[in-house]
């Protein structure tokens, strides 16, 4: 059992890890074909995984409705939305699902006039959250937050016409902040992230990090 649960996945991780790392350095068609095949496997697995995801979602909400936990009414909407979408998807504008997808059907309408605006609504909340987060951050309680406040004010002013109206140096200072200290910090983070990613990859390839298989050792 341990052989199937531990050894086999570790061998697969090692072989595929080394193979795909080497694939990057081999431009030959065979290497490109290997990448294509592996990518196709990934897409196939992802296709099957959708059923697992759908099962998890419906099972969770069914349990919530059955047990009448707090907010169980929202779970009815999950079923309602899914059933309506499925029905119009199968109907396919009267041509049914075994034909090519039709344009301008109720399925499209649900997407463009329900899902997209609902997503945009959630996204628009971000503007208010940015304002509240900025308010908390820009309160100059420490030296660091004072520096942050000054830099933020300069960058914000430098990005709008009024900044140039106040002083022609403000846009130049804003550009400098973005191009020098900001970029330097960003690159520093990226270098650390890259080294971390290499180390993590090696740990997984050589089977040192096994917690992603479940358990710590």
């Amino acid at each position, binding site marked *: 059992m341990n052989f199937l649960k531990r050894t086999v996945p570790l061998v697969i991780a090692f072989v595929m890890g080394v193979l795909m790392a080497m694939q990057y*350095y*081999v*431009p*030959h*068609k*065979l*290497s*490109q074909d290997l990448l294509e095949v592996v990518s196709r496997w*990934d897409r196939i*697995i*992802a296709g099957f*995984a*959708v*059923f*697992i*995801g759908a099962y*998890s*979602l419906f*099972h*969770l909400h069914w349990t919530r409705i059955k047990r009448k936990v*707090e*907010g169980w009414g*929202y779970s009815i909407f999950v079923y309602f939305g899914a059933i309506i979408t499925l029905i119009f998807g199968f109907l396919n504008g009267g041509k049914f699902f075994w034909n090519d997808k039709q344009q301008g059907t109720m399925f499209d309408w649900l997407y463009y006039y329900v*899902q997209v605006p*609902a*997503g*945009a609504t*959630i*996204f628009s*909340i*971000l503007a208010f*959250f940015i304002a*509240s*987060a*900025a308010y*908390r*951050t820009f309160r100059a309680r420490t030296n660091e937050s004072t520096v942050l406040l000054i830099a933020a004010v300069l960058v914000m002013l430098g990005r709008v016409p009024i900044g140039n109206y106040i002083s022609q140096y403000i846009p130049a200072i804003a550009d400098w902040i973005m191009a020098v200290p900001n970029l330097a910090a960003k690159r520093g*983070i*990226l*270098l*650390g*992230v890259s*080294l*971390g*990613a*290499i*180390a*993590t990859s*090696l*740990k*997984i390839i*050589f089977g*040192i*990090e096994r*917690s*992603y*298989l*479940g*358990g*710590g050792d």
Partner: protein
Amino acid sequence: MNLLKKTFFLTGIFFISFFITSTLVAQSPAFLIPPTEFKAFDTPNDAGETISLTWSASPNDSPDVFYVIYIDRDKNGAFEKEAIRIKSNTSYRTSAPEIYGYKKKNNDYHYVQIFPKKVFNGEKIDKKQVYYFKLAMVAGDTKIALDTAASASAHGNWLHTKKINNFVIMIILSTIILYFIVHARRNPDMFLRKIGGLDAVDEALGRATEMGKPVLFVHGLTGMGSISTIAATSILSRIARKIADYDANLKVVNNDPIVMSVSQEVVKESYLEAGRPDAYNSDNVFLVASEQFPYVAAVGGIMTREKPAANFFIGYFYAEALILAETGSTTGAIQIAGTDAYTQLPFFITTCDYTLIGEELYAASAYLSREPMLMGTLRAQDVGKGILIIILILGTILASFGLVFITHLFEAF
């Protein structure tokens, strides 16, 4: 008056003659100076599907003058198939630094790549087929073609020579990491600097246990193919183990079914390892939505209704980062975030109690487990950073004196 008429007449004659002459000159083949050094060769470092062509620039190069390349499989063929047509003031060797580097004279030569299979679309072609090319220059109705044909066949390459720099760096860094892993086995008492966010994990879990409220673990939006998601599942494993010990309640929300399956397995194994398999409930590791903003709405709803005592945002996040963290902040939960998405870091730093910045996300698993071999990689990362800092300083000094070869030495193609 008579003089004025004569002047107008002569001026008119002059302009008409000038217009006719200039038109004739512009269309005359005698004034198109043909390019030289027309060469064809197998494109280096490719899959064997392209042939590269190069020739010298002509003084006639302008947007109105075109280069046309004809292709044939027979040296004595008719050369009627047009492989490519470009404006003569475009496509220079400067567009292919991976072949020609950064020499100044690259602006004096044109460079194009031809995909013979696309040109002979649908026709059966031998793998070793030699292709012949002829170059013509076209300006309006005038066309001059070079008599000589260039030839080459396309072959795939087994090593990308321009990625050797990358390969060498990878080998050096890998050797350093593996050395420190082995070294760490011999010297398990290794010093690690404190990471506030990870030290606070116990505090957050203890608070959740005391309050009797759940701990919410929120995955990022990327799938299992992303290294940050793998790091997140490793952290989840450590957190789940501690939660099983504390007998607290863990909820893991996912937006990817594969990540959800892996997370279920990881949490289950952690509970098993802690000797609490009965406490594991697979319904607590679930998929809430596979789209970005429905995911945000669903997770926000869970935070608002269930008011978790601690929220963990671990993985790669996009625009949803601030919405999730702000919603969590309003519920009064202890929030610990970890991401390598540098665009979202300021939002997490602003709204969360502790944030694992970039590489700390990858260090978390080793830090929490304190396994010597895993900790060895952290020391290796520090040494790697030291080497990079030396290279950066050296590169800055050299670039300040106009020596930029070190920039090209580390260039990725």
